[in-house]
């Protein structure tokens, strides 16, 4: 009887370019099912010229920490001849939140760049860590929203932008604490581009996954939305609000996020356990016919949501 050799190690090679969520997923797909498969180790290669976007950085962080929790050996390899990527990640506090079990080469920064420079760059916010099960501190969302306000202070719609960032972060962080059920920390990050036209907000957790907690509860209470596909159910969550509880006050969070996001024509990127949905804004709401779905992706625990607000 023939047997197939199982790879002992999966290799995730990030592109030597700007890496958005789509490129990250492509790299993860080429890597194989590192978390869901039998491999015992994961190597993450960050080549020279690699510039991961903030939503990718927090996903990578969650991915590495999840692999460690699953007792896999994780090695993060940076190019010897280009320290830019490592410096950027260090500045954001990536290594402060990375599991100590992850081996980093050439080596981890001796002193955290985020701690050294905290608050020094109005356009960049360090990664904020919060418990997957304990309420987050008020200062976390206030600080992130203040950064958005300060870096966009000259804009006429700065009040709306500040409120959008505040509300989206509050609602997403609140959802993680209430629903993720994960012992691992979750992460929030925001990046503004003072001379650009975008604000990116991302929240990443390592929990059960938004649809995995919602759909069985809907089925149990006989809600017709239980039979919807992933895209349709997600769109309904953003459009009308859907909750696993009978209390109809619940389910407001994602709907409120969408109400703010649509004012800035934001793209919504949602990474599920084995799929990804990208929602593009229609005129006044998000609709299923403007959604792009990827299925059959490698396993990543949790829910990873990113908003890209477009500033006029």
């Amino acid at each position, binding site marked *: 009887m023939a047997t197939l050799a199982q790879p002992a190690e999966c290799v995730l090679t990030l592109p030597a370019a700007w890496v958005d969520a789509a490129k990250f997923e492509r790299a993860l797909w080429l890597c194989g099912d590192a978390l869901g498969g039998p491999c015992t180790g994961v190597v993450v290669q960050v080549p020279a010229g690699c510039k991961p976007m903030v939503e990718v950085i927090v996903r990578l962080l969650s991915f590495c920490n999840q692999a460690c929790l699953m007792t896999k050996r994780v090695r993060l390899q940076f190019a010897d001849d280009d320290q830019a990527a490592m410096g950027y990640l260090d500045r954001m506090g990536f290594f402060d939140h990375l599991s100590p079990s992850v081996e980093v080469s050439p080596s981890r920064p001796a002193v955290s760049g985020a701690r050294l420079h905290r608050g020094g760059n109005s356009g960049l916010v360090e990664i904020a860590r919060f418990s997957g099960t304990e309420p987050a501190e008020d200062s976390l969302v206030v600080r992130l929203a203040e950064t958005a306000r300060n870096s966009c202070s000259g804009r006429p719609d700065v*009040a709306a932008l500040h409120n959008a960032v*505040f509300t989206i972060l509050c609602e997403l962080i609140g959802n993680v604490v209430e629903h993720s059920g994960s012992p691992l920390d979750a992460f929030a990050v925001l990046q503004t581009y003072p001379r650009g036209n975008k604000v990116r907000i991302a929240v990443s957790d390592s929990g059960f996954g938004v649809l995995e907690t919602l759909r069985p509860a809907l089925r149990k209470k006989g809600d017709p939305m239980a039979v919807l596909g992933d895209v349709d159910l997600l769109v309904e969550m953003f459009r009308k609000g859907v909750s696993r509880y009978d209390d109809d006050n619940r389910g407001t969070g994602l709907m409120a996020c969408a109400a703010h996001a649509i004012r800035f024509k934001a793209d919504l990127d949602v990474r599920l356990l084995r799929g990804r949905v990208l929602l593009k804004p229609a005129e006044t709401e998000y609709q299923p016919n403007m959604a792009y779905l990827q299925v059959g992706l490698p396993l990543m625990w949790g829910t990873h949501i990113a908003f890209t607000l477009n500033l006029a």
Partner: protein
Amino acid sequence: MDGKIGWGRPNGRATLEKLVSFIEGHPAQPVFRISMEGVEQIDASFASEAIVELIRRYRGQKGICLVDLLDLEVQFNISVAAARVDVPIAVWRDGVVEIIGGQPSQGNREALEYALTRSQARAAELAETKDYSIANASTKFKQLWEQGFLMRNESAADSGGVEFVYRRIG
């Protein structure tokens, strides 16, 4: 809610308990005006638990409205939370009332606008002004009261018997 910022369901519920406790402590008072002065930021979940749920809970029994709500972004979040569950909220500014959140049906919109521009209104007056039948005007006001847009009291009718007087909330 402590301070100027409120967010999250647990904080919203804690604030709701305080507001309910205050209202229950004043059983004879029919109207409560909640001042939003000093509130800089609340998210929709907080608004849903603390404000929308409070108004919904006392719908038809107590009139609860918001005053000193000058920040339109704070109002946006309250409105989003209230609209989701069709709860109308009366907001007073400079002597003028605006309804945010739940909105009346197309058929009742005119009747509501009529009632909001005067201190009190009767179905007979609405019927005469808008050329409705008395029964139709009465039904519209009754629906607006049931849905939480208006308050009402019983009053002696000119023709004898009892009629309802409808009032703005606040």
